[in-house]
């Protein structure tokens, strides 16, 4: 069973339960569809926004606050976006966050050694992609489960980041032009937000409107069936891992420019937030499959809730609690919507 299968099953479990006639009777009474199976996150997001805007009109319900939220989540959103391709192809990339941290260290260290920013960026992107090549080789050729392979790679990258930094924080030696890439703002929102928008658009087109996207979901949905139809399954899976790693390299460059310093532990904390967003995203817009819009909704839904709680003065542990509650809540709504849809279809 693939990741997509599991997610779809989570969203639609119990949908084939007996009692179809009763469900059909209920369905016939309901004529208005609210799309909870696809848009529960959007509803929840709207509720959260309205709730906090009423409760905190001076701080939460301001244009400035929405600009801050937009910029704050750009890195997390891009890490989550990087995960979409491998998740769609039915493989995990647990090394993506460690790769981000590794690339932060690489791009900073290279510039500290006197390399120009453009060359350092190119070499870092290459290094990031190289990690994906190794991941792909281990998963496809050595047939190691992607969960294990990328977990191991994550540990290797953490060691690499420690080696590059010597365990120290790397400061200075980076040009102001490089820092501007991550720290300047446009219309009051930091640059990384716009990089995230561009990345989202590109990924959206690839995933939803090109054969590559269809291949990814075909492989992720049923690898054997995809192979029987003539798809080069191994190439698709390896390619997805290489792309996610290359994107991690890009995010690492942007994060380095944003922070202005590097240390070996900056990447890994993004892993859980990114995976949460992708899995929550699979319950939105295109239920049962990883998708760009759903992932962005998930990132900003969680961020909006956390921001509201922070502005309310909630203690720090409430952030994690909110993320967990929101994830379960949105998935529960989506699962309920999917069950009702199936019941309605069965009745028809």
């Amino acid at each position, binding site marked *: 069973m693939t990741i997509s299968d599991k997610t779809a099953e989570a969203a639609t479990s119990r949908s084939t339960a007996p009692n179809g006639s009763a469900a059909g009777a209920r369905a016939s009474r*309901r004529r*208005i569809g*609210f799309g*909870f199976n696809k848009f529960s996150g959007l*509803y*929840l997001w709207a*509720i*959260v926004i309205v*709730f906090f805007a009423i*409760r905190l009109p001076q*701080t939460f319900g301001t244009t*400035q606050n929405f600009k*801050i939220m937009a*910029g*704050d989540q750009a890195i*997390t959103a891009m890490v989550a976006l990087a995960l979409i391709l491998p998740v769609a192809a039915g493989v995990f990339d647990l090394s993506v966050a460690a790769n981000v941290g590794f690339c932060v260290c690489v791009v900073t260290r290279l510039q500290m050694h006197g390399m120009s920013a453009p060359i350092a960026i190119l070499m870092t992107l290459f290094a990031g992609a190289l990690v994906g090549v190794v991941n792909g080789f281990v998963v496809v050729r050595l047939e190691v489960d992607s969960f294990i392979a990328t977990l191991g790679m994550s540990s290797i990258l953490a060691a690499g980041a*420690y080696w590059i930094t*010597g*365990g*120290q*924080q790397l*400061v*200075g030696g980076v040009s102001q032009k490089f820092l501007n890439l*991550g*720290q300047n*703002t446009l219309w*009051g*929102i*930091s640059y990384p937000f716009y990089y995230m928008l561009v990345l989202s658009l590109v990924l959206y087109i690839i995933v939803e409107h090109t054969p590559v996207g269809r291949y990814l979901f075909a492989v992720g949905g049923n690898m054997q069936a995809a192979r029987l139809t003539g798809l080069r399954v191994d190439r698709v899976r390896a390619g997805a891992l290489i792309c996610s790693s290359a994107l991690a390299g890009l995010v690492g460059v942007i994060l380095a420019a*944003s*922070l*202005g*310093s590097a*240390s070996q*532990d*900056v990447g890994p*904390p*993004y892993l859980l*937030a990114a995976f949460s967003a992708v899995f929550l995203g699979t319950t939105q817009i295109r239920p049962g499959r990883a998708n760009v819009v759903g992932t962005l909704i998930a990132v900003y839904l969680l961020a909006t809730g*956390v*921001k*509201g*709680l*922070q*502005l*309310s*003065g*909630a*203690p*720090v*542990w*409430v*952030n994690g*609690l*909110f993320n967990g*509650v929101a994830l379960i*809540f949105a998935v*529960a*709504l989506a699962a*309920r919507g999917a069950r009702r849809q199936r019941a309605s279809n069965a009745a028809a």
Partner: protein
Amino acid sequence: MQKSMKLTCVGVALATALTACGGTATAGKSSAKADPAKLADAKTLVASSLKNPDSIGITNPLSKTPTAGKTIIVVGTPSPVAELKDIAFADAIKKFGWTSKRLVVGAGPEDEAKTISQAVALKPDAILFSGAAPSTLAKPLAEAKAAGIPVLAETVTEAKSGPIFDASIDGPVFEQYAGKLMADYVAVKSGPNTNVAVVNLPVFNVLTIYTKAFTKELSSVCPSCKVTKLDQQLSDVGTNTPSSVVSALQRDPSIKWVIYSVGDLSTGVDTAVKAAGIKVSVGGGGANAANLAALKAGTEQAWTGLSTPILGYRDADMMARYFNGDPLTPGGDALLLPTQIMTPATIGGVALTSAGNYLGDAGYEQQFEKLWGLS
């Protein structure tokens, strides 16, 4: 539809409940007037602390140069500060003709104890560890005691016990002093009714001591000042902490200072605060190289430093006293390490390491060598 509505209501109720949980603790007193005597003391301390330290802080020489041939295992915490300190320690004991081996502790909760057990198995002449609470290391410390291996604990908040022959270096007294220094600086610099956000990592007891000392001193010197606590989790550093600090500043625009109990907590915050269009003064304890670079750039305002090279040498000094059989009281300000308040105006004259970290007293090696009978 009714069930969906119920679910939605449950969600809103949960969100309401979560926000109701909230409220970071605040300290401070209304509009009480400051005690002029306390304020005068604070001004005096600040004025003297803006100068560079000119001594390593201890004065008693060793009774003899240590005998060569000892092997020390350093149980190394995988943090930048700890590694710098351990490098300095290794450098210092080389002067005695001793050797050291560093065993790096992993990230797991049991790893500190396992690493000390591993150190005991290597049968060294002594073990050095830092940061971890000795009370959580009962088993490996019992092993060390049974093996007759003395242990030096540094940067801990508990008293010595079992095989630990000293636990005073970089302990609570230094953190309390550093917290007091910064509180005095804020009170003197910003005057009454100053609102301060203090960002802390409560997982480290020693940092909480800093935070409490800061809060206590500020409320003493400036009763009208207010402190807002912003406790963070270790995984928040560099990820959620910037957003958390920005939210606190949005929530309370009267906050004029953000004080960090340790410099690493400030990672990524300056950029987030700048992007939010907020202006605030920044400072704290345990400045890292990025904080000192920010002082030079004028984007942060006041930090105290912890000199890791001197800390490493102090550990070596204490080891030497133990093996010499000398009193473990090195004289001077033994419970303190050299430190100072650094500002954009003074940072140019502060002694830093080649990597840009705080050094404090550039002549520290010569001073230690003199105490050790090596020069």
